[in-house]
């Protein structure tokens, strides 16, 4: 099967790739760009470990083909820290919102996307809960993750309840 020349822009940097159409965005990020921060769990859109931002929207990178993402702005967990930790990363650490860390990149990108679109999501308990049901965590439960997202939104300092 012929590979197609595709340019992915990931965290502001262009990657010129030759990928088969069947290459998912998740695999292209991990295997072709070497950005292994994006994790792959279920590969059918349920677990959310592979969540990245495409043009500002949180999407499952396992359900999108790399060739569809030419011209798109892709953001992955590697792009979060800009010299210093992103406030969400600080909050996840302070709130113990991870244990094994497998789901963490997906949760971070899910939350970054939601907070950038509307920081008010943390003030609506039902909406925040619904947002966080998008992804699966099998270690900690979700309460610490919820607290971390609220803290990162600036509503209260991390580590306090």
């Amino acid at each position, binding site marked *: 099967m012929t590979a197609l020349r595709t340019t992915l822009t990931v965290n502001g940097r262009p990657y010129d790739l030759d990928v088969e159409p069947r290459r998912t965005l998740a695999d292209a990020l991990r295997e072709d760009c070497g950005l292994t921060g994006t994790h792959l769990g279920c590969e059918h859109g349920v677990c959310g470990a592979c969540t990245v931002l495409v043009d500002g929207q949180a999407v499952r990178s396992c359900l999108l083909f790399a060739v*569809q993402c030419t011209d798109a702005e892709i953001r992955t967990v590697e792009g979060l820290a800009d010299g210093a930790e992103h406030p969400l990363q600080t909050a996840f650490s302070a709130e113990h919102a991870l244990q094994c860390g497998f789901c963490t990149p997906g949760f971070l990108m899910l939350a970054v996307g939601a907070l950038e679109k509307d920081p008010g999501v943390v003030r609506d308990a039902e909406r925040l809960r619904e947002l966080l049901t*998008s992804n699966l965590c099998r270690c900690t439960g979700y309460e610490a993750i919820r607290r971390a997202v609220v803290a990162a939104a600036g509503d209260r300092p991390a580590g306090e309840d």
Partner: protein
Amino acid sequence: MKPAPFEYVAARSADDVVAALADGRTEVLAGGQSLVLEMNYRTRRPARLVDINRVPGFDTVEAIGDTVRIGPLVRHQAFESGAVPGQLGALLHRVVRHIAHPPIRTRGTMLGSLAYAHPAAEWPAVITALGAELDLVGAGGRRTVAAGDFFLAPFRTARRPDELLAEVRLPVLPAGTVIGFAEHRRTHASFAQLAVIAAVTLADGRVSSASIGLVNAADRPVRARAAEAALLGRPLDDPAVAAAARAAAEQDADPGPQPYTDLAYQRHTVAVLTRRALDQARTEG
């Protein structure tokens, strides 16, 4: 869990899509939230995909007179952010929150869901209840199919392999219409076991028209005509709601074997959800 090889075409116009579909071995890639999943499982192995994500105008929602036209690339998310005004918009908003979760709704499309025809999907029963029309475009031209004739069986529709589902037209709900939606599923993240959609129009305190749809209560989406008839001409009160719930369960539903449940339980659940949807309609509007 990787897709089998396929050819990829990025369409730039509706004509591109129709031309690509003409070979009968090409599938439409819209949101891809079911198609790519199945391709990852290799339960589907299309020889070629035509990607409609870059076709200008396909993401349009347009209200014309008493009809709302929805294009083939309108994502579920649009119905959360008020793309459709009025009570119809309110009904779609109430339903859409039950579809998957936010990152799926940013990609998945209403028309993709209709074309996929998953038995537990909400949109097929919504358009069936409301009596919508669908436009299919293929090499042979454009044709219109009523929602009631579109769904044939789980995952089977009247769409031919060389046709694009180009548009669905939903009727605006008349003034005085109250709406309800009730769904049952085992966990928040599960598919719907059953769901009921209700839109009831009241005039002078009595039901002048009713649209009731059942999700996953038969081999295709059901318009619950017996339940609707049980409401007509009556006030939307406890006895009318009870009669409609009984009719939906005993006459309209035609359940088949399902995991985790038996037929009596399914009929019972249809009655409970019909009552809840109608109660929601009369209390919350």
